[in-house]
């Protein structure tokens, strides 16, 4: 489903990725772990087509995506990928339901249909009560579940989560992870999680440990 071959990426003089190679199968849940500065987020951004590696290849479904133009990669992210960040990803001015409906609306789906789908996801994630509230009125855990709903609403084949529980307390974090992993398993969605938290990594089928921009170890659950 998703492959990376000898990825290398530098920021100014800092080497973030130094020849990373990996393969992730369909429906697999993979955690990318490592100490701060080990290149976890950079790897996730390269896999998701958010940034391009300096060298190496990223393949999705057998097709290279690192050579695609910005427009093609954007379309790919909208149609096939979902992304969850640590915080700050919801538009504060939109209601929770509108935030979740955005990917569908940008894909030219009807307003009613998009909002209906959004509400249905909010129900699945047990935050239906927050549908008409704005992010500023929600707790961190509720906001993150809404972000999860937004990442899943368009039926992506892969969801990338960058420290999805980093800004939450352990209880809220656990709940978000339960739902994210539960939904991914139920729908057969591939999930790639970047985390430095062992409890989050424990949800994964496989853990890829990075150190100094290279794969240091792989552990299968």
């Amino acid at each position: 489903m998703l492959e990376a071959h000898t990825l290398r990426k530098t920021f100014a003089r800092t080497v973030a990725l130094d020849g990373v190679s990996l393969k992730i199968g369909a429906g697999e849940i993979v955690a990318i772990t490592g100490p701060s500065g080990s290149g976890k987020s950079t790897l996730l951004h390269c896999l998701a087509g958010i940034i391009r590696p300096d060298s190496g290849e990223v393949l999705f479904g057998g097709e290279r995506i690192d050579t695609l133009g910005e427009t093609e990669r954007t379309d790919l992210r909208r149609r096939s990928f979902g992304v969850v960040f640590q915080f700050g990803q919801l538009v504060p001015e939109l209601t929770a339901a509108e935030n979740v409906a955005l990917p569908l609306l940008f894909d030219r789906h009807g307003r009613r249909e998009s909002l209906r789908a959004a509400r249905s996801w909010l129900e699945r994630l047990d935050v239906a009560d927050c549908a008409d509230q704005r992010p500023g009125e929600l707790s961190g855990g509720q906001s993150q579940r809404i972000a999860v709903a937004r990442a899943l609403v368009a039926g992506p084949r892969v969801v990338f989560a960058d420290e999805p529980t980093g800004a939450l307390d352990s209880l809220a974090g656990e709940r978000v992870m339960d739902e994210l992993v539960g939904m991914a398993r139920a729908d057969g969605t591939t999930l790639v999680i970047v985390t430095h938290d062992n409890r989050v990594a424990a949800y994964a089928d496989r853990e890829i440990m990075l150190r100094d921009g290279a794969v240091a170890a792989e552990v299968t659950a």
Partner: protein
Amino acid sequence: MIAVIRMLARGESRHERVRGRLMVAGAALATFLLCAAVNLLQAEGDRLGAILSGDGNDVTALGLALLIVPVAAFVYQMSRLTGAARERRLAALRLAGATPRHVRLLGAYEGARRASLGGLTGVTLYLAVNLALSWVLDGALPLVSFVALPAVLAAVTLGGALSGLSPGRHVVISPLGVTRGVGPAGPRVLDLVLVVAGVGTFVAGYGGKGGFPLGGKYGGALAVVAGAVLLLFGLVLATAGLIRAAARWVGRRTRAAETLLAARLMEADPRSWARALSVIGLTVFFSSVVGAQQAIVFSADVPGTASLLTTYLLVDLALVVALATSSAALVAHQVEQLLDHRRSFAALTASGVPAPALGRVLTRQALIAALPVCLVAALAGTGIAVLGAVDLYGERPGAIGWTMTRAALTVLIGALTALLVAAAARRLLRRTVRLDEFHTE
């Protein structure tokens, strides 16, 4: 305190330095215009009498003084650029022991320093132009008084200091950081009071001609003028409410994600758009007034019509300058908006929302805000001018064509200005919305 200010000035980022230079340039322009207005007024003995008799110099002086309004709006918008960085800096200072009073003083000092620097530049520039013109015109233009210059400089510096007193926007700066209020202050019912009072006074004065109960034989005319002035200020205050209502209406009906996002962003903070568009609204208002006046005066064949052409030309020129200056303020507003929303926009881009779609959000915001503001301003301006002129010269059906055309053109130019600024900001959008906003390592 001075030592802290110097340290901060040394550590300014490139963007802050650019903002500072723009503020100095705005202050210089305001000083120049104020000096010109003072100089023209000096040329008259009985100023009030000259204004009432419609003397050209005083009308031009008034026009120049009024041009300070868009320049002030420009300086104000500039002062809001890089606000987030400044707020973080102030929060860090609070953590280091600065009191809220220190924070206000820092802002006032910064504003006064830049305003005085701009003021000195403006005075120097005006003195040079004044001397050159006096020499070319062989003394026809008097030299500006050396008493007036320090007064102008003091006024500009004071304005700068006052504008810097407030740390800015709807944020609370505490030692723990910068927090936004629950939500930006929305439009108030009070803002509509002036509109209602203005219309009421205008109608009472207009309808009660000859029999107006107050002010003797000029009572009716005074009520009409007072009503028009109240309506003008009321419209400026009500702009935020109008924008919010338009955004809410559009947001409830649209099917397009771009329009929904644009409408919701504006509904949440209509005041910033109102501030940016108020001068454009005023320009449209005055332009419509002038258009209706032109049409009626020329169709009425008033004696001395030819000499009015120069006056109207000057007024139109002043309106173009006002529009250009308010466009610059609008640019600053767009930059501020982009900086404010960069995280949300970056997240949307990472989720696969194409950059052109976000660009369309900007242009739709401009349309949703500018169209109603310009329409209402044109309607109010035309209405007041037509009623006043019909009272003086009688009904002139021949004047309707140009009045309506000019009003429509003015609305179009106002909305187009906002649209062009938004379209230009799309380039900036790509540079502002960077995906490394989410880069945690």
